[in-house]
């Protein structure tokens, strides 16, 4: 029993690396994992659920495909069965993911490209939101926007928010080393300087507000839809 429970924890840990691309939060803490079962022989069954029947199918596909990939990559896993439930496009998504077919093939005629560009767009938003998390305390401490723009990563005190920002910047291929500027253009990686800094910080705050408001609504909708907490879900106030 203990061995199986541990294995389940490892699977949940792995699923914790799968993020909702729009909300930039793990599917586990969001409550999107309704079932996670691991047999003694290493057969894994994961069921995912979303706040609404009509959540955008492209993001849903990414989450199901990513969940499949992280579980399949674990050692000692014999079979993987990941499926989305209660969603208008569940059948197409689940069949496509199980066949490792990709998005275009799964939605024949409805899509023209895989989802890499879409994913990049949302990691860029996560970088902006993370920039607000890191910079707001600096501004509150009295540094003006142009001053924030003169800082490098090494000038900022370590924090979980900074670590997260650097991980997102790395994902996008943006400079993330100690000498890199704290404020960079999310498209080009070029330093933001001078008068452009205030506008950049304004956009960062706006982007974070948008993501947080969506997350709040999604959590509320999920709670109405499902009485039971998800596997690995964190209760939010």
């Amino acid at each position, binding site marked *: 029993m203990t061995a199986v429970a541990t294995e389940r924890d490892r699977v949940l840990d792995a699923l914790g690396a799968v993020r909702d691309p*729009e909300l930039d939060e793990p599917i586990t803490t969001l409550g999107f994992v309704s079932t996670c079962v691991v047999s003694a022989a290493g057969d894994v069954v994961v069921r995912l659920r979303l*706040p*609404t*029947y*009509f*959540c*955008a*199918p*492209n993001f849903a596909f990414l989450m199901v495909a990513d969940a499949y990939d992280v579980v399949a990559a674990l050692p000692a896993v014999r079979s993987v069965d990941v499926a989305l439930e209660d969603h*208008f496009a569940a059948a197409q998504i689940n069949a496509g993911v199980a066949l490792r077919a990709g*998005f*275009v093939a799964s*939605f024949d005629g*409805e*899509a*023209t*490209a*895989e*989802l890499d*560009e*879409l994913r990049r*767009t949302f990691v860029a*938003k996560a970088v*902006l939101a993370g920039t607000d998390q890191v910079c707001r305390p600096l501004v*509150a401490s009295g540094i*003006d*926007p*142009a001053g924030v723009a003169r800082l490098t990563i090494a000038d900022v005190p370590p924090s979980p928010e900074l670590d997260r920002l650097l991980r997102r910047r790395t994902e996008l291929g943006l400079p993330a080393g100690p000498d890199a500027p704290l404020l960079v253009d999310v498209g080009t990686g070029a330093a933001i300087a001078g*008068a452009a*800094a*205030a*506008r950049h*910080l*304004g*956009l960062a*705050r*706006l*982007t974070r*507000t*948008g993501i*947080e*408001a*969506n997350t*709040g*609504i999604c959590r*509320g*909708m999920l*709670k*109405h*839809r499902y009485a039971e907490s998800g596997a690995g879900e964190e209760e939010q106030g």
Partner: protein
Amino acid sequence: MYEKNGEKYFVVDSHMHFWNAGPDNWVPGAEQYAKGWIECFHAYQSLAPKETHWPIEKFMSYTEDDLMKDVFEDGYVDVAIFQPTYLKEWYTEGFNTTEKNAALGEKHPGMFVHNTRFDPRDGDAGLEELKRNVDRYGSRGVKLYTAEWNAGSRGYKLTDPAAYTYLAKAQELGIKNIHVHKGPTIWPLDKDAFDVADVDHAATDFPELNFIVEHVGLPRIEDFCFMATQEPNVYAGLSVVIGGLMHARPRFFAKVMGELLFWVGEDKMTFGSDYGIWEPKWQIEGFVDWEFPDDPEFADYPRLGIDGKKKILGLNAATLYDLKVPDELQLKEEAPAAQDDSKLVSS
């Protein structure tokens, strides 16, 4: 009209519905979509104060009496603007059509504005239907739902050539206001369906039309705000912002309001209850009482005073729709010359 502390508010509910989503109206073979859609709407209602929640049965098929009581008798609304959404692939007679709305509205002269809709994939027949609706119901506005399914297509963008044909025709027919509601599907499906870049293009190319982005572009508030600062004819429709956040997530509500006041400004924000998702009464009462939390986090946002609330609750929409506002409900004096809240950050 709503009155509080001696101040009187002219209330225009600029986004509301009279739908039939009951099983009697579900298209055979598409029941799961019809059911999924209304259950999704019902989940939104759960974000309101508990005492205003309805059982799903009532929510699917509320009556004319319910609407008149909730919106006008109890809900302080002076004029309500019907925003139709058809969804005929899922609902046999449509979810909420121009005709169904008008059948109710025509019984109550002066209380409703009858907007219509179009779908650019409907070709010449759709253009003729648009003209008939404008002629018959006097529509000055249209509601567009870009994620509507139509004969195998999962949606459209405002920049599609056919959409431009329809926008030009609408303008020629005297339509002034385009209410845009984004949804989760468009073609191609690999693009972000909630992206508002197409509204940006259309607003530039049709400067005589006003574009009211419903739900302030949620879930893309940031893209919406950034666009709205640059387009003088783009407005923020507050349906879902007040209904979905003010009670359930008050701090996020304050932040979203702060961002909207900063980027868009109080002259370009319009109240809409999204009835029957949410009753207007608690939204109007709560909004008039609302203030930013006393916290440094909110200190930088523009303030919203009584005049601003009057504009958002009714006067802005009254201007968009040329509605007659009684003198006693106008702003007490001319607001000081264009206080420009919506400007880009500069230093």
